[in-house]
């Protein structure tokens, strides 16, 4: 059985960043396993710009951003095994994979980094009534057809969900000659970044219907028509509010879910909120030596944070491989009022580096107060304007604070504006 110091599952933005970090920190015997024919992951189909502002201080396209990391990985002689699917990850850190050249192979890794990415919620998961014709796609599926394969899925388009991929596709398909009739968002606020609302919808006069959803699909063979209804505060359709659009295409941009089945089968504990593994300050999961990062851990807003997080998980793996991780009490990190989730979810009492929490709020805040507490002790308190669920927030727990922890950690966000 072949043995590696570290095996990274996934050769997208997280996996490449983790690989580069491992090599740079002296871990030589590593392998990246990628299911597609080339590394880069979903970035290869995200041909729009806006990537890399944090990492490279430039606005790159997705493929360019990926290529920067691919080049670094090549320079560092990272082995990337493409067209290879991991079938099973075992708690003993054996990995079973399959590809056309080698067949069915089992390898052993001292450390495993899960950088598996996420998948899009499908129509079935959001329960849209009506027929099931051709013409209904997830936004990412249509994006792949258009940007990698070079085909238009349709010419008369409606989009359900204001996630960023949906917004990006609204602009992309408009530029390619399609008519985008509108975007419906179930929630009273958009799930996309403000920049995308402006540049993908407003620039092209595409209406955004907040508190609306698709309530019926018509068309037996190919989509012919959709019914869109307003929803009330319980997100139930309001009778009499129906609008009809004669479209041949419906794109769904209704959420991303971490691809967690390998972790689940390996017996790794999951966070039901993020739907990814629970990790500690080293990004280590509940199975020692298995780490997680990127959209397979929790869904990120910007790829720069994926790369950053993956580098941290790789640094955690290096500590593990160098035997510098101490068994110690781990404090839990809770999402308090106003907060949907916090990652990492555990902090070791002996953690000797700063921990940056990523978290998302549950709803929009005009003027928010963010409080991080340990037991009753307030560790950090700050005010921030304009918090929204579509944007990931960060908060740092310093080594000094870790030394002074009095109990589990909670982050809460409350509205402090006078309600104007």
């Amino acid at each position, binding site marked *: 059985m072949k043995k590696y110091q570290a095996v990274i599952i996934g050769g997208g933005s997280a996996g490449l960043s983790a690989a580069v970090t491992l090599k740079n920190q002296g871990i030589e015997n590593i392998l990246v396993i990628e*299911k597609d024919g080339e590394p880069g992951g979903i970035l290869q189909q995200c041909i729009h710009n806006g990537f890399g502002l944090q990492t490279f201080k430039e606005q790159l396209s997705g493929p360019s951003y990926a290529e920067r990391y691919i080049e670094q990985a090549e320079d560092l002689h990272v082995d990337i095994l493409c*067209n290879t*699917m991991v*079938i099973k990850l075992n708690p003993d850190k054996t990995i*079973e994979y*399959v*590809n*056309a*050249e*080698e*067949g*069915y*192979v*089992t390898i052993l890794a001292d450390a495993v980094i899960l950088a598996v990415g996420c*998948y*899009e919620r*499908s*129509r*079935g*998961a959001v*329960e849209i*009534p*009506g*027929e*099931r*014709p*051709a*013409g209904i796609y*997830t936004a*990412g*599926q249509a994006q*792949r*057809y*258009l940007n*990698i*394969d*070079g*085909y*238009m*899925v*349709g*010419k008369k388009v409606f989009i359900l969900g204001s996630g960023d991929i949906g917004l990006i596709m609204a602009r992309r398909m408009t530029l*390619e000659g399609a008519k985008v009739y509108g975007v419906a968002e179930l929630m009273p606020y958009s799930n996309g970044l403000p920049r995308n609302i402006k540049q993908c919808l407003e620039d092209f006069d595409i209406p955004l219907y907040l508190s609306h959803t698709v*309530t*019926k*699909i018509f068309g*037996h*063979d*190919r989509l012919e028509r959709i019914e869109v209804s307003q929803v009330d505060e319980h997100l139930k*359709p309001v009778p009499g509010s129906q609008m009809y659009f004669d479209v*041949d*295409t419906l794109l769904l941009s209704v959420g991303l*879910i971490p*691809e967690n*089945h390998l972790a*689940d089968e390996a017996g790794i504990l999951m966070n039901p909120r993020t739907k990814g593994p629970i990790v500690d300050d080293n990004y280590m999961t509940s199975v020692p030596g298995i780490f997680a990062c990127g959209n397979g851990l929790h869904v990120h807003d910007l790829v720069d944070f994926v790369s950053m997080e993956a580098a941290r998980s790789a640094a955690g793996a290096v500590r593990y491989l160098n035997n510098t991780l101490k068994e110690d009490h781990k404090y839990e990190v809770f999402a308090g009022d106003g907060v949907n989730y916090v990652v990492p979810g555990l902090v070791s009492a002996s953690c000797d580096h700063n921990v940056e929490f990523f978290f998302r709020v549950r709803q929009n805040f005009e003027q928010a107060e963010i409080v991080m507490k340990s037991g009753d002790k307030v560790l950090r308190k700050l005010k921030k304007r304009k918090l929204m669920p579509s944007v990931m927030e960060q908060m740092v727990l310093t080594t000094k604070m870790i030394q002074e922890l009095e109990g589990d950690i909670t982050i809460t966000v409350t509205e402090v504006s006078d309600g104007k």
Partner: protein
Amino acid sequence: MYDIVIIGAGITGTMLARDLSRYRLHVALIDKENDIADGATMANSAIVHVGYDPEDDTLKALLNVEGARMYEKICEDLGCHRKVTGAYVAACGEVEEKHLDILADRAERRGITYEWLSGDEARKEEENLSEQVTKVLSFPTTAVIYPWEVAIACAEVAVTNGVEIYLNTCCERITKEEDHFVIHTNNGDYETRYVINASGVGAEKVYRMVCDTPEFKITPRRGEYFVLDHQVHYVNHIIFPVPSAEKGKGVLAVPTVFGNTLLGPNSDYVDDPEDTGTSFEGLDYVRANLTKTMKNVPYRYVIRNFAGLRPSSSCPDFIIEEAKTVPGFINAASIESPGLASAPAVSQYIIQNILKKHLELTEKENVCLTREKPLAMADLTPEEKAEAIRKNPLYGKIICRCEQISEGEILDCIHRPCGAHTVKGVKKRVRPGMGRCQGGFCEPRVLNILARELNISPTEVVLDAKNAKILESENR
């Protein structure tokens, strides 16, 4: 001139086609859809009922019990998946418990294995059974299958033995000549001595082409379902509520052959025989009624909902007979539940009790009624997988990541007799797109494989029906 034309390539029509393919007969099977098993056979509970449910002295009772017993061998012969899960009929309270006695009595008389369990005993086996369940009648031999897989396998065998299959062939008119029929379709005329009407929801319509006063009326009855991902294991057995005259078998929880769970159906009469749409009301009904027998339903694992139409009939029993006023026209109509379980026996009944009277049934030489099981990577041990990939590297190229389906398996199903030529056809045969991402990842890849193998443009590949194009145009 055909000896027999079967209208409808569902489970009944394909079973019959396979059974007839052993004889020296000129047989055609026609269907209006673009693939085998696109009607009621595609969207149902997938259960081989053992036969305690139908009333005494009915064809349903006779053929259900007989048909169910034939499935083990049929699935073995055809290399089809079948899983004996057992079924629980769960009673809540005394009134329902009394009804279980009726079912047990029928089972006893029909030689069907059954067992009694208390509510608590049943809950030990099924932790998600509701607290309201007081008594359970268990039928340990009840099995689940992939209905369309069996139908496709039957069609494959039939074609291999010389039966002709014509898809996208919609029967528009039937004229009766002196000693034969002419079936006029969008795809030409078919002359035949005998017609077998196995057209499910369309059976009344087809019958009306030869008879102005049909003795039965078919009303499509829609059943809607949720499908749970196999990441969650929810039930071990099929869980039925106690059946009732008005609601039929009720809302079930069904473990499928591949580890998913089906929840449903409701039962809703619809006017449009094409209306397989789901509805808020229907799915709400399923949710509400499931609480009677089940608890802790993990709806967050729902990956799909779908609806199927059952050919609900004004006649409570199957109608399997030569039409009284139209000699040579044989109805296999009014076949709703337990039509799937009964199909093998229905086919035999038609051959032995009807066709034999009219036709000389001599066996052909060199017929093969079995089908080798298509290679399925997921069923193999690691060693067997390695061996398969050594022989054909494409078995190592995984296309569907959720269900781990390889390109080799997809190619196999395209190039078999009655092979897949649509994205849904591939999904029905080897299951890419059946998983949690519902094809989000693999559909573009499957589409490109189909285009390449069928030597057509990707823009010509369809989802299912022949007009269901997936790509509108080349963008560059």
